[in-house]
């Protein structure tokens, strides 16, 4: 199997998985856009290996594949950092919700108790 077909298969599988997840509502468009964009990029590099070679020459990287790995790991790192910040935001929000919920529950409790006392 050549790098060409391998790249194309990779791109196709990514697109299929993303599409299926969208269909099952497991992934929101907001997040899908990025993966679709990435799959298309992989396909382009697979179809036109000259692009990668040219980029390697430009950046002075001797083996084009190394440039690919380097860029790929940077992209994955960036995605992970982005997801971590997203999780932080969600945690902050659940924490705030938990605090509010506890306060509402206490207020309701007290209202019920004073209501029962009056009756």
């Amino acid at each position, binding site marked *: 199997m050549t790098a060409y077909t391998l790249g194309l298969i990779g791109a196709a599988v990514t697109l299929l998985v993303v599409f299926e997840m969208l269909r099952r509502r497991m992934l929101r468009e907001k997040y899908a856009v990025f993966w679709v964009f990435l799959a298309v990029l992989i396909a382009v590099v697979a179809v036109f290996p000259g692009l990668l070679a040219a980029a390697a020459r430009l950046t002075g990287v001797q083996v084009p594949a190394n440039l690919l790995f380097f860029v790929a790991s940077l992209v994955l790192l960036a995605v992970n950092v982005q997801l971590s910040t997203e999780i932080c935001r969600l945690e902050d929000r659940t924490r705030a919700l938990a605090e509010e919920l*506890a306060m509402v529950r206490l207020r309701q409790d007290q209202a019920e108790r004073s209501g029962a006392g009056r009756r």
Partner: protein
Amino acid sequence: MQLYVVDDNISAKTGAGTLIVIPALNEERSIGRVIAELRRSCPQADLLVVDDGSTDQTASVAAQAGAPTLILPFNIGVGGAMRAGYRYALRHGYDSVVQVDADGQHDTSYIGALLLGLRDCDLVIGARFAGEGEYCARGPRRWAMRLLAVTLSALAGRRLTDVTSGFRAANRRAIEVFAEHYPAEYLGDTIESIVIALRAGCRVSQTPVAMRARTEGTASQSPLRASVYLLRACAALGLALVRRWDLS
């Protein structure tokens, strides 16, 4: 709602408009005793237990003792629990908040002294090592405490010897800051909260207190973890100093 009469009598005045917040995690064996003790030593103050997702009977024991209890649906840490407490205090118009541990380590007879300190400060820390009591730490844990104390004293422009103490009193000004920003980070509930108060322009001081040995259960520190604690304390302090908060 808080209704109180301003009185020249000190003991009546210190109790007026004060909310005592007790963060509790699995303290069913001591919470009842702490509540009873608080009722005796601070009859004018209102109590609020913040049960932080305890898996034991903490909440029902507190309710049986008649203390209003905020029941958090899951554990969010002392920082989150205390922020909820400060929010509650702000919404209900309290003019001071005292934080007391649920494990019975804090001697509630010192609460009056903490509240007195609020006359010329916004946040008063109840400090061990400041002359009272016999509590004594050794090794890396002691070094960590020293480092933290020296740095925060410099920031506060006042001697602070025990910045990890959870025994403290806050006035309206500090309540407003803490209702908005009370960090959930590691050590955030102690060190970073002091840094935040200072950066928001609050005056921070301390008053000596004695602390008891834990009456039930185990403290969250073991000797082995002391070195890790030192490292994490340094990291927490460093971050607290540079972190961006929207403090007005």
